[in-house]
Structures are given as structure tokens and as C-alpha cells.
């Protein structure tokens, strides 16, 4: 074997990290909660909540508009019937 390659193997021998390395990694791993729910499921759930909220809001707006139209129609109807009665009363 080439003397330089031999020296490189000696110089680059594996070294151990500090003695508390394993304890530090285990402590850090314990601090990080393991994500049991798949990410796609979490994303799908969030999308469902947002879509439902959007649909609910649209339904609420639709109901409010419907109530306004009904009120307008009632007012118009009562006015029309009053005019009709006045016309009948004015006839000879």
C-alpha cells in the first residue's frame, strides 16, 4: 500500500462524538412529537374545514338575500292590492 494512503487511513480514522452525544440526541428526539397523522391527511382535513366554512358562509348569504327578496315582494304585493282597491272604488 502507498505510504500516503496508509497515512490518510490513520489520519481519517473514525472518531467518537462527545460522551453525552447519545443522551442529547435522545432528549431532542423526545422533545419532537412524532407525527402520527400523515401529512396529506392533515392537509385534507384543513382543506375540508376551509371549504365547509366557505360553503356555510355562502349559504348564510343566500338565505339573507332570499329573505330580502321575500320582504320586497310582500311590500310590492300590498301596494298593488291597495292601488287595485282604489281603482275599484273610483269606478262609477
Amino acid at each position: 500500500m502507498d505510504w500516503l494512503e496508509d497515512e490518510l487511513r490513520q489520519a481519517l480514522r473514525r472518531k467518537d462524538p462527545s460522551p453525552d452525544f447519545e443522551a442529547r440526541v435522545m432528549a431532542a428526539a423526545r422533545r419532537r412529537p412524532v407525527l402520527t397523522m400523515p401529512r396529506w391527511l392533515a392537509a385534507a382535513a384543513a382543506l375540508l374545514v376551509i371549504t365547509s366554512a366557505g360553503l356555510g358562509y355562502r349559504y348564510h348569504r343566500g338565505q339573507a338575500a332570499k329573505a330580502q327578496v321575500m320582504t320586497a315582494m310582500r311590500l310590492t304585493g300590498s301596494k298593488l292590492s291597495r292601488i287595485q282597491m282604489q281603482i275599484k272604488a273610483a269606478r262609477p
Partner: protein
Amino acid sequence: MTELETVVQPGCDFAALMREHRAMVFSVVYHFLHDRDTAEEIAQDVFLSLHRNLRAIQSAAHAGFWLRKVAVQRSIDASRKRMRRPQVALEDVAEPVARGVPADPMLGETLRRLIATLPETPRMVIVLRYQEDLDPTEIANLMAIPVSTVKSHLQRSLALLREKLVRRGVREE
């Protein structure tokens, strides 16, 4: 400890994998960056990444390959982020004052310092070749580069290191 053991697959005990591979992961990063504190931080990140991805690990051998690959990637990433020390070509490293033939412990440190001045790719090739004893095909596979590139980096780096050492007065045996 028990919380961690409940999430690992049979045959992929996280604590056992760490005990088996910690020296490999730490040394790849340390010999590449030549900085013990940073090497410990990166090695810790590599193992935490393994912990998050433990479900994807199929066997202990797969874990070893996975850890080595991630250690290589993280080391190169860290080297690129280090803007405080600009890259210096090996040819440009200043010669120290000649003090005769260095003793063997000094030669090891001299070699590690010279390796630290190599550009990223040849530096990692040297670390994987002489620390991990990988052949050029394995190194090429791990670093996703052609085998011919690995061989040329090895030849060129060895020639440069030899030249530098001879100029420092280290005799060839």
C-alpha cells in the same frame, strides 16, 4: 426511552442504530468540516432526521446507507453556508516554515488540515475513500457523480497532498 421505542419498527431500534453509526456519522462530518462543535450539531440533526423517517427504513443496512448519504449531504450544505471562510485551493495554501521531518502525530494533523483545504467534492471523496474505505463505485453512487470523476478526484488530490507533504519535508518511505 419507552416513548421512542414504541415508534420504531422491529429491527430498526433507533437507539441501537445511533450507537452503531454515531462514530461514522460524526467522523464523516468532522473530517469534512474540521470543526468538532459543528460536526456534533450536524450529526445530531442527521440522527433526528433518521428518527423522523424511521418508518421508511427497511433494515439496519439500509439505515447505515441512509445515514451516510444524509451525513454527506448535510456536510456539503454546511460547507456551502460557511461564508466566513472562503474556499482556498490546495495549491494556494501557504507553506509553513520548514521544521524538519514532522513526527507522526503531527503528520496526521497536517494531513487533516490539508484535506480541509480541498474543494468540496474531492474533499468528500477523500473522506469516504480513506475513512469509510469505500471503493470509487460506492462513492459515485453515494454522491451521485460519475465513477470517472471520483477516480480523477482521488488521483489529483493524492498527487497534490503528496506534493505538499514532500515540500514540507515529509520523506517518502
